[in-house]
Structure formats: structure tokens, C-alpha cells
């Protein structure tokens, strides 16, 4: 069975998805994702030339509400579950080199 997704593809996709993977994992995912993609090739046999893609089950359009301020969570609450915080803010490592 030809591999649809090479280990290089897996590493590219993992980077896009912000996942760090080892070479060993890349090998495994290459095989598993390829077999899932191969399986999904069956969709190409369906004639969909005049079929509109379905994005949503219900025939709904935009749902509007009044734009009114409401009480929600406080700053303290928002920070409550943060792994690292300082001075009322989330703290992260440096973003720029």
C-alpha cells in the first residue's frame, strides 16, 4: 500500500497543529494516517458535481441579539486557572527572539 502521508508530511502537519512529535511517532502516524486517508479515498467515487457543501444541519441564518454589556467573569476569575500569571496578566515565555 502506497503511503499517502510520508513522515515528512506528518512532521509538517504536526508543526501546523503545534504538536511536537518524535521520529518514531512520525513513523507510526504516517502509517496510521495513510491508512485512514486511503480508506477515505472511497469518497472520490461519489458524484458530487452539483452538490452544495453542507456546513450546517439546520436552515439557520445569522442569529442576532442586542449588544448589551453584561456581567461575566472578573479578571481575577479569568486568571484563576492560569499555570503562570503576574501583575494581573497571563505570563508566557518571550515571543520575539
Amino acid at each position: 500500500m502506497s503511503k499517502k502521508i510520508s513522515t515528512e508530511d506528518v512532521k509538517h502537519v504536526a508543526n501546523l497543529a503545534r504538536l511536537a512529535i518524535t521520529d518514531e511517532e512520525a513513523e507510526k502516524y504516517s502509517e496510521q494516517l495513510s491508512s485512514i486517508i486511503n480508506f477515505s479515498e472511497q469518497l472520490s467515487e461519489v458524484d458530487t458535481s452539483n452538490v452544495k457543501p453542507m456546513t450546517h444541519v439546520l436552515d439557520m441564518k445569522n442569529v442576532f441579539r442586542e449588544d448589551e454589556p453584561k456581567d461575566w467573569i472578573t479578571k481575577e476569575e479569568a486568571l484563576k486557572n492560569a499555570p503562570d500569571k503576574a501583575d494581573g496578566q497571563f505570563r508566557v515565555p518571550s515571543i520575539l527572539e
Partner: protein
Amino acid sequence: MSLLDLTIKELQEKLSNKEITVTELTQACFDRIEETDDQVNAFLTLNKEAALEQAKQLDEEGIDADQFLLFGMPIGIKDNIMTKDLKTTCASEFLSNFEDPLYDATVITKLKNANAINIGKLNMDEFAMGSSTENSAYKKTTNPWNKDYVPGGSSGGSAAAVAAGQVPFALGSDTGGSVRQPASYCGVVGMKPTYGRVSRFGLVAFASSLDQVGPLTRTVEDNARILEVISGVDEMDPTSANIDVPNFQEALTGDIKGLKVAVPKEYLQEGVDEEVANKINQAIDTLKELGAEVDEVSLPHSKYAIATYYMLASSEASANLARFDGIRYGKRAENADNLIELYKQSRSKGFGDEVKRRIMLGTFALSSGYYDAYYKKAQQVRRLITEDFEKVFENYDVIVGPTSPTTAFKIGEQIDDPLTMYANDILTIPVNLAGVPAISIPCGFHSDNDMPIGLQIIGKHFDEGNVYRVAHAYEQQTMHYKQKPAIGGVN
């Protein structure tokens, strides 16, 4: 006979007559959990202190069971439903420190308003991705009918807890069968409502165009009552439908004379276990005896449902799970020296194998050069699958078939083979793709392994009433729910 074997009606009658107190009923759940959960492993977090406190309050206020549909009723909650101040992990290592959720899901607010009592949080496949609950980062839930077997998934904890009599009712969530398949494997009743019937606010999103919260119970009547409580439009979820919530219990008349029932030939074809098919055919005969008119129909695009689903659900998941970045909540990897590394390390350590697999599959399907071939194509086939249902429902009230092609499988049997695992959902996935409601109810046992078999009843959009009507009529005729697993020395 345990208190926990009674229906909501029976329990509330006992409360009204002062035969029992809410505290006794709540305590009975925790006793039963203590007695059985070292074997079942259904619960991740118990809400004992708060639940008993709430029970005491309700007892002090006095029994007014008629005023509240779920007054004093104990319920277990799948761990992907947000509960304020009660740990919510989605069975993921990533959320292992998420002790203080800031708000309740709308379904939890509604349960609280109905005076139901949250007993605790139930095990599941991590982020609801899986069909056996083996993808939990914490524990392996077993099937109460035989501990060597999986309970199904992803709402395996919810189904097992109800089957084991730990709680009489539970909430699960269903994206591709995650309420109905475990209900089938554990011999309980599980409902996936119409997409939009129940607010998704506070349900941790997996695939937003497919996810719905649904009840798991032992009887159809209890199920209908819980759905009535949790349903309704919600301004916090713009995809919740602004449609009146009927009193579903009015549909439980036992009368299905003249009701038109369709049986898709694709649902009883090869791949479906022979004895499962036989049991479904017996159930169909029962429906005929009750006066239903039954015909064979076709849902020709059914065979494409799994591929369609895995493209769409994984794509949506890859976007939804981007929020888990290790910054605002959840576990953060240590020693990352820049932001990108922090994301990557936190996510890689926090997510399990199946979650990573689906995030990567979805990212691939949405990536430049593949979007049209995989994602858009799947959206088109989704429409064809939906149109199959629409055509049948022009002439029929409900569709029936098996919930799953087989009974429960053994723990460890399928975990290494994603595609075999995915095939468990072939009969439940089309329902999510079309957004229609469907229930699984017990219809007997397999002679090879004595494990339960589930009958699936599918309805039109927002016609849960007729689904419940047929399910209830069948249940009352056969009374399968009276059979319970022997576990912890108690029947």
C-alpha cells in the same frame, strides 16, 4: 430491590409520601458507588459534599416534587460538560489541574433549576474521541455486564454508571454515536437529540456541527423527562434552535398503530452480526404486532458515512482543540524557552494518542492543497447522506435498525487499530451527519457472550416525540430494562 432501581415518578412519589428523603437517596448513590466503583471505574470526580449539602437543603425546604421535574433526582455528568467549581477534565491529562471551571454549562444550569443533584463526573474517551472509553487518561471503565468488556464510548462512564445502578440517570454527549453506542453496549436507554435541541454552551467542543448532549437512563419515560428539562433555545449557543420544547411524556401512550416504520436494508447487511440482526428483526416483529406498518427502504450513501465523518469531525476537532495552548488554563510544559515551543510541548504532553491522531488528520484535511479533495468533498457527501434521510422521512415516521453492528468487544481488543475501532460507529454516525434525533434501547442479549444488544430508533428533525413513542411502546411490551447486571453482589 434498590432505591436506585426506581423511576423518577416512583422516586418522587416516595419523596412526596415522605417514605424517603432526598438525603437518603443521594447517600444511596454514594454508597453504591463506593461498593462497586473499584470494579466499574465509572467516576472521575465525586461531588459528594456539595451534593449532600444540596440534598439537605431540599429536605429542609420540604418536598415539592410536582413543581420541579427533577426534584431531588441524582444524576451523573460526563466529564466534558462544564460544572462550576467542580473539576472538569474531559478525561485528558491536559486538564488534570482544571479544578475551578468558571461557569456551568447551560444543561447544568437547567438541571440545577429543576432541583436535580449532580453526583459527580463520569469517565469518557479523552475529549470524546473514541468508542470504548479506553482513551481516558485516567482509568479503564468496565462493562457492568462483564468486566472483561468495554462499556463503549465515548460516554462509557455515563452508560456504565447507569447500568451498574450507581446513578439512575446520567448525561453524555454524542458526536458520532457516543451516547447511543455505550447505551447499547451497557443495556441502557440513550438519546441523541436533534442537533440544536439542546444548548452546547459549556459542552467542551469536539465537532461543533455534530455534538449534542443527551440523557442516559434505564427507562424511556425517565429519558424523556430529562430531555425536556435540558432542551431549549439558549442565547449562549446561537446554534440552539428557537423551537418550542414539547412535553415528550405526552407521546408515551403505548399506541403506535398505523405508525410508519422504515427499515434500511443497509443497516442489516453484511458486517452486522447475525444474531444482532436476528434480534433487530424480532424487535421489528414486535412493532408490527403493536400495529406499526413496516417497510424496507434504502439509505444508499450509508457506506460513505465513516469516511465523511472522520474527515469532518477531525477537521472541526483540529480547530476546536487549538484553544488548549497551556496559557490560560490546563497543564503547561516546563522549560519551554519560547512561545511556539511552549504550545508544542504542552500539547504533546497533555494530549493522548487518539487525540493527536485526529488533530493531525483534521489539520491535514484542512491544509492547503487538500481542502477540496478531503474536507469539501466530505461536506458534499454529508449533504447526500442527509438527503437520503429526508427522502425516507417523506413517507415514514421513524427508521429502525441496530445501534451497533456488534455487542461490546473485549478491553484491549481494538485499541491498536483505529479503522476497526471507527467501524463500530457505522450505524450511529449517519444520524449525527443528518442532525436527526435517535435513541438506543435494549432489545435482548447475544447468546455467545450474554452482552446486551441495542435497537436504534431514528426520527425526523425535532420529532423526538415519535422516537420516544416507539421506544416506550417497545419497552413496555418487552420489559428488557427489568434485567440488570449482577455487580458488587447486588442485583
